[in-house]
């Protein structure tokens, strides 16, 4: 039996969560303030994931030089830097709408990178 202490990052409360593991099997999750924390803790000890946000250049807009983007869903934590590198050469042209796919299936994660700003 092993114990891991985590800080939940799903909301600003930042609950201190304790996870008890039997090998790789989660036996118990305590300290979470809500269900999302339980979900987070189970994932964090087995397959931690993150949403990645960055910006890519946009052409043809009188106001903006960059447009903000995010992964439409979480990607494995180990791929975070790869995702940002994959976006390094990507460019967009105005108009861009929130939700437009900027790069599909980034790094083979099955997750699209989408715009988060209307430009």
């Amino acid at each position, binding site marked *: 039996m092993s114990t891991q202490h985590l800080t939940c*990052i799903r909301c600003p409360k930042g609950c201190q969560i304790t996870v008890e593991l039997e090998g790789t099997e989660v036996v118990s999750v305590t300290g979470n303030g809500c269900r999302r924390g339980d979900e987070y803790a189970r994932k964090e000890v087995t397959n931690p994931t993150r949403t990645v*946000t*960055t*910006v890519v250049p946009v052409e043809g807009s009188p*106001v*903006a030089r*960059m447009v903000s983007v*995010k992964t439409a869903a979480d990607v494995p934590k180990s791929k*975070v830097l790869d995702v940002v590198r994959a976006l390094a050469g990507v460019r967009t042209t105005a108009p861009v709408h*929130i939700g437009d796919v900027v790069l599909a299936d980034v790094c083979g994660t099955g997750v699209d990178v989408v715009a988060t700003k209307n430009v």
Partner: protein
Amino acid sequence: MPSTATIQTLERDIVVVGGGSAGLAAAISARDAGCESVLVLEREPQLGGILNQCIHNGFGLHAFKEELTGPEYAARYISQARERQIEHMLRTTVLDIADDLTVTAVSAERGVFRIRAKAVVLAMGCRECPRGALDICGTRPAGVYTAGTAQRLVNIDGLMPGREVVILGSGDIGLIMARRLTLEGAHVACVAELMPYSGGLKRNIVQCLDDFGIPLLLSHTVVNVEGTKRVEAVTIAQVDEHLKPIPGTEVRYPCDTLLLSVGLLPENELSRQAGVRINPITRGAFVDDSLMTSVPGVFACGNVLHVHDLVDYVSEESAHAGASAARYVRQLAEGAGRGASDLVPVRVAGGIRYSVPAFVSPANMDEKITLRFRVGAVYQNRYVSLYVGDRRVQHRRKQILAPGEMQELTLRREELAGIAPADEIRLLLEEE
């Protein structure tokens, strides 16, 4: 400046100064409360305020039950404003607010112009403490930025401030920028924090520092900056319980960039010009439960009123200010309105630094109001108590209270029933 005779003068019921999340929420709710004549003035070429540069996610969990990025959160309010056809002027800077509620503004399009308003909502946000306000020894080379300036450079202008970075101050913007710069290929050597606790949210320490192995040095500060043209190195030392550097603990970090994330100050020059009384603790206006300042008809909300960590609460507070402004305009037309005489002060003590609002009107208050406050240090297992005169009407146990996290409680009108004219409302921490 053209003479008064040639200056264009407009008339509007409500003028909102600033089109960030506070200004937008105030304008939308003023319109929904029945005010048809609302004008938002914004200095930048786009609405949304600081949210435009906060590209990370974590906004809106409370207001929308989803995790949005800053620009997405702003877009929701921008489209609500658009649906209501709320008038706004961009690239328009407010220069002055007179105590008769004449607003003077300037834009390239109109030049200097005036707006006669019946009510004004202050929503100018805040700015970062500049380096001058800190005393760090050493030279004054290029490469020293506030964290927010760096955020703007990277996220709006697409420019990198540097490659080898040290961050002083563990406020949320500093933490967010530690991750942001790391993702963009810079190396962040450490985040130094003067206090024994971080000023930022725990989640940001986990996902912005721990995820990337960036050390957080609590009780540390920058004692020297080296470099002639550009920063070449900074020296960091540990501090004692009086926040004084401990000799012999100095470590030199070669770097080309120093980011300062040492605090935010409400932007209140305009408010002062209008004669608004400023609370020395929050550096924002003293307001009553309708969020009206000491100048009748002038309301304040968002970061210009007090610095918020979460935009959701900015929106909530600002919607209240907008609705109050609309009511004020209506009552003005009816010749009614509240007097300052029936205001009861909310006194804070025992570890609580301030309360917004600072005054409550038992006669005019809504069914329930929200008191927002901050504590001055980290406390464990304390009770937040609210007294009306000698009566304790609220007594709530909190496992942990930290200066970085704004607290709130709901005060109901019925809790003030029977309040005597000389009574005070007191908000304090108690051990039991």
